[in-house]
């Protein structure tokens, strides 16, 4: 098993396309997305019950090598500043196959 970092990003559903473009531009080759996520944060409740996707979040998980984390985090930070959202980094091990 190989040591990696789990990066979790939760932000506006409408914003996820931009987040993915950013990640790919910084060399992320794999990720997983869960759409239709609700929640609450500084910007209030995202209840997910409207016709638009304005009040809905998406969740993204990417596992990447530890040395790539800083670049990704710095790339994502300004976007979260403007658009809101959360980015968590944690340790994990990747089962190689």
């Amino acid at each position, binding site marked *: 098993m190989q040591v990696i970092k789990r990066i979790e990003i939760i932000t*506006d559903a409408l914003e996820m396309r931009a987040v993915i473009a950013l990640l790919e531009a910084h060399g992320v080759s794999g990720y997983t997305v869960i759409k239709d996520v609700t929640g609450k944060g500084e910007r209030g409740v995202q209840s997910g019950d409207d016709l638009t996707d*304005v009040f809905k979040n998406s969740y993204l998980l990417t596992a990447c090598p530890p040395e790539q984390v800083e670049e990704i985090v710095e790339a994502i930070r300004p976007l979260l500043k403007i658009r809101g959202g959360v980015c968590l980094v944690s340790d994990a091990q990747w089962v190689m196959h």
Partner: protein
Amino acid sequence: MNVELVLSNLLNPPILFFFLGMLAIWLHSDLDVPQPLPKFFALYLLLSIGFRGGVELHKSGINHQIVLTLLVAMAAALLVPLYTFFLLRRKMNAGDAAAVAATYGSVSAVTFIAATSFLSELNVPFGGHMVAAMALMESPAIIVGVVLFRLSQKQSGSQSGGLSWRPLMRDAFFNGSVLLLMGSLAIGLLTGTKGEAALHPFTGDIFKGVLCLFLLDMGLVSARRISGLKKLGAFTIGFAVLVPLVNAGFGILIAHFLGLGAGDALLFCVLCGSASYIAVPAAMRLAIPEANPGLYVTMALALTFPFNIIVGLPLYMSVINSLWR
């Protein structure tokens, strides 16, 4: 306001299902119309109203008055966000003002559809080109709102990250609801009475039933947003009721001036007086992230929409009835 008109509207099943939805929220019921069912109903309603509008246009043909109506409709959609922006700027920051202006400059397809259902209840005819007018009025306000915001940012010297126009244009003119409406209209226009014969059981016969289900959900959504009104000030609340009235009033005058029929006049006035809560919020969220959707969505959904379909429809119609006779 004519009592008969009020009753005609209130006893229209879709409006009653709207009340039922609101009631469910007030009673803390767990009644729910889970996603993506509301999106399904919206797809269906846009497809059907577009298609039927196209078929009617096929039958009526396109004349000078229709072209003029469409041009005037677009002009209205450009002017409303302009004047409301400067009104709103007195009490709001540029982002919020621009987003609210775009919201009220654009149109609410559901209000329009409720108005057509009201007209069919009254047996008043209307033209298929009004559907085209609706489609044409959705986008311009989005562009105007964003331009106004950009200009006031430049004035105040804030650094703007360089707005990309292409995604904005795309979100404004090719967003899902505009495209489906326009496409269905074109398909109705192309296939005419033959298409109508094939699709009427779907786009016509069951239309009012699906509208009931959709308005049931709108009642839920709208009532859930009412709690958000507490955070809005008197100015905002006043705006959300009075500006639609003013816009609808202008709409009636213009319709009278253009010599539209009573049905078309109601639809035109409803287009002017309604506020968007589907296409515009999504576009604003992307183009003006500084604006607070809790403001513009709440105003449109919790106040302007219910006001228009409950009070507005019979009110506007009785004004039209007295002017048109």
